[in-house]
């Protein structure tokens, strides 16, 4: 036992009135203290502060705050832009999470066997993950360029006419989804690959001996055993859908006519462009609540997924 430990013990041990040795569990708390300090400073305190702010309003041009209770929330739910942002975010989450997970799983199944060729292809698909979202958005901005962008250039050869990928309010959100799927599928693929490696060989072999075809193997062996991985990927995918906004800022600024406005961008816009701290705080609280809900539900599912039975 070194000196530090001894002095710590002296701090945390004493004799009770009856002479028994009492030992508190101070050490783990002391070890947690630095992390707790930073969490409080940068996570819990801001959360409490934003919760408070969401119940106050400071009219633009005045210094004094006025308590409005749920007023900001009421204003937010009535706001057309907010309704649009929520709808968009839902559509965006579904439209990116499902395809990117299906794609990631398909890639993982195809590239499961490790050889030189597959490793090369794997890194190709993983590559978009390495690019920051801002840079990816800048890159795709040129892909989407109407007329001579990469997409239109090749589509024109197939006889398609010019498409306004980001300027058409019916298409813009789907264009962002396309970018997001491209960006994320490779990342999720890595998790599925790891999951696949973890499936015991004997189970698969048993299935083969029983005469299960490829589809039956996938349906009754691989997918059930991958469930924990799938649950985990689902959770992080949904989190990403609620916490990514860079591409919106770079490419569309939420336009045309709020067709690409997402919840996070809505917060940014209300705070920085519309000077509406109250509404921005209310939307932030909502965002945090949704994120917490997603992670709690996700973790539950995860835990259940681990105790599977075959």
């Amino acid at each position: 036992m070194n000196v530090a430990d001894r002095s710590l013990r002296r701090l945390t041990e004493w004799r009770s009135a009856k002479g028994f040795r009492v030992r508190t569990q101070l050490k783990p708390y002391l070890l947690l203290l630095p992390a707790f300090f930073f969490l409080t400073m940068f996570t819990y305190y801001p959360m409490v502060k934003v919760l408070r702010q969401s119940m106050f309003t400071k009219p633009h041009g005045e210094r004094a705050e006025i308590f409005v209770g749920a007023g900001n929330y009421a204003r937010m739910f009535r706001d057309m832009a907010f309704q649009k942002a929520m709808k968009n975010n839902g559509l965006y989450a579904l439209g990116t999470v499902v395809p990117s997970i299906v794609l990631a799983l398909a890639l993982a199944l195809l590239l499961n066997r490790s050889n030189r060729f597959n490793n090369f292809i794997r890194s190709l698909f993983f590559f978009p993950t390495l690019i920051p979202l801002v840079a990816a958005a800048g890159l795709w901005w040129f892909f989407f360029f109407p007329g001579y962008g990469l997409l239109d250039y090749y589509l024109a050869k197939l006889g398609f006419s010019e498409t306004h990928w980001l300027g058409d309010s019916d298409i813009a959100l789907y264009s962002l989804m396309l970018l997001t799927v491209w960006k994320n599928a490779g990342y999720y693929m890595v998790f599925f690959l790891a999951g696949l490696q973890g499936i015991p060989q004997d189970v698969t072999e048993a299935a083969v001996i029983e005469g299960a075809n490829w589809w039956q193997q996938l349906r009754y062996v691989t997918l059930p055993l991958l469930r924990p991985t799938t649950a985990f990927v689902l959770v992080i995918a949904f989190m990403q859908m609620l916490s990514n906004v860079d591409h919106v800022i770079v490419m569309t600024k939420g336009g045309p006519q709020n067709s690409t406005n997402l919840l996070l961008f809505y917060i940014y816009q209300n705070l920085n462009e519309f000077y509406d701290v109250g509404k921005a705080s209310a939307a932030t609280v909502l965002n945090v609540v949704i994120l917490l809900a997603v992670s709690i539900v996700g973790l539950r599912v995860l835990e259940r997924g681990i105790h599977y039975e075959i």
Partner: protein
Amino acid sequence: MKLSRHAVVAVVVLAIVAMVLPLSAFARTKIEYFFPTMVEGPLAREMTKIVNEYNKMQDQVKVIAAYTGTYDETKIKAQAAFEAGKPPAVVLMSPFSIFDFVLSDYLEPLNPMIKADGMDPEEFFADFWEAAHPNAIFDGTIVAVPFQMSTPLLYVNCEHLAEVGLSCEKPPATWKELVAAAKKLTKKQGNKVIRWGIMMPSNYDYLGWLLEALTLTNGGRFFNTDYRGEVYYDTPTTKGALQLWYDFVYKHGVMPAGVTEGREVGAAFFAGKASMVMLSTGSLTAVRKNAKFKYNVAFIPRNVRHKAPLGGAFMVIMKGLSPEKKKAAWDFLKWLTNAENLARWSRFTGYFAPRKSSYDLPVMKEFTAAHPDAVVGLDQLRLYGYPILQVYNSIAVRKALEDEMHALLNNKTTVEKAAAEAQKKANQIMAPYNKDHASAP
């Protein structure tokens, strides 16, 4: 020999004085200056040179320049710094944010400092183009000094014009001529348009500016320069502007549908895929460099009259500085916005110098003689310049109209509905201001 006590004291005192004197001479007031541009880039490099020059020129003030990204980011950073009790001294700011900063009481009124210099505020400001005044002076108080100015311009491809028998010396000057020319210039291959007659940027910010330009040339105005709680969206003049733009796309088929960004418009013009474009005078340098054909520039065509809203940015001093820093900030701002420096910045960037006297300098005379296209923009500014939209919560109010215009460009609404809806939204946004000022005459 023993030194007398007096001698020792004298030597010590002298030594201390000798040590402290140069120190105090070098105790310069440090001030922060926020300049909206990326950290690396030609603008940041040139600005660094200018700031270094100032720091070398005198030994009272040391300016520390911070390159703070876009106008929006700069505004956000300045606001955050102010709220944290450490405001930057001088900030280059977009006119959209200036009035909002005035309302938040972030900006130092400049009148007292101008007067302390023995100048009359009105006299001080007389050298700046009149059109910029309403964007910088509120209730007679100067809070901002113009630094760079621009106006929208019509750019035409001379080769295309010649092809359809139009004179490049006389580009379209009226809406009617503009529509006729755009129709002639649009080229189709079967059903596919291979060349657009006209393109105009419709991304946020650019769109509002150009709509203001068209509304002005249609004889109307966008907002009340005397009372910042009023915009005129649901009016015949603004509706006329919306209609013209809508017709370009859906009636005449001479402009692509949907929202088109400024960069897309520029690229289309350079590639010969758009014969006429409306872009800022700020694009002149890029056009000069990239257009591999003969081009010409003209005023924004008029329906009723010529008029053009000014774009650009202004220098402000933030409140909450110590008296020394405030003095230093003012000294730096004055130097930065003198005729020579504004002329230098103008030649470097392609923006107009906001001071009239800058154009009396020999370097500027030389420059304008060499670049007649710059003179067109300058004339428009001089003769027909008008303040840019600046009301309570400008950006939100501007977006109210831009969102409706986006719907219009996607053929999702009508001009009547768009104007009415934009007006309704804008009024809602400005309601708190109008409630506060209801009793005002």
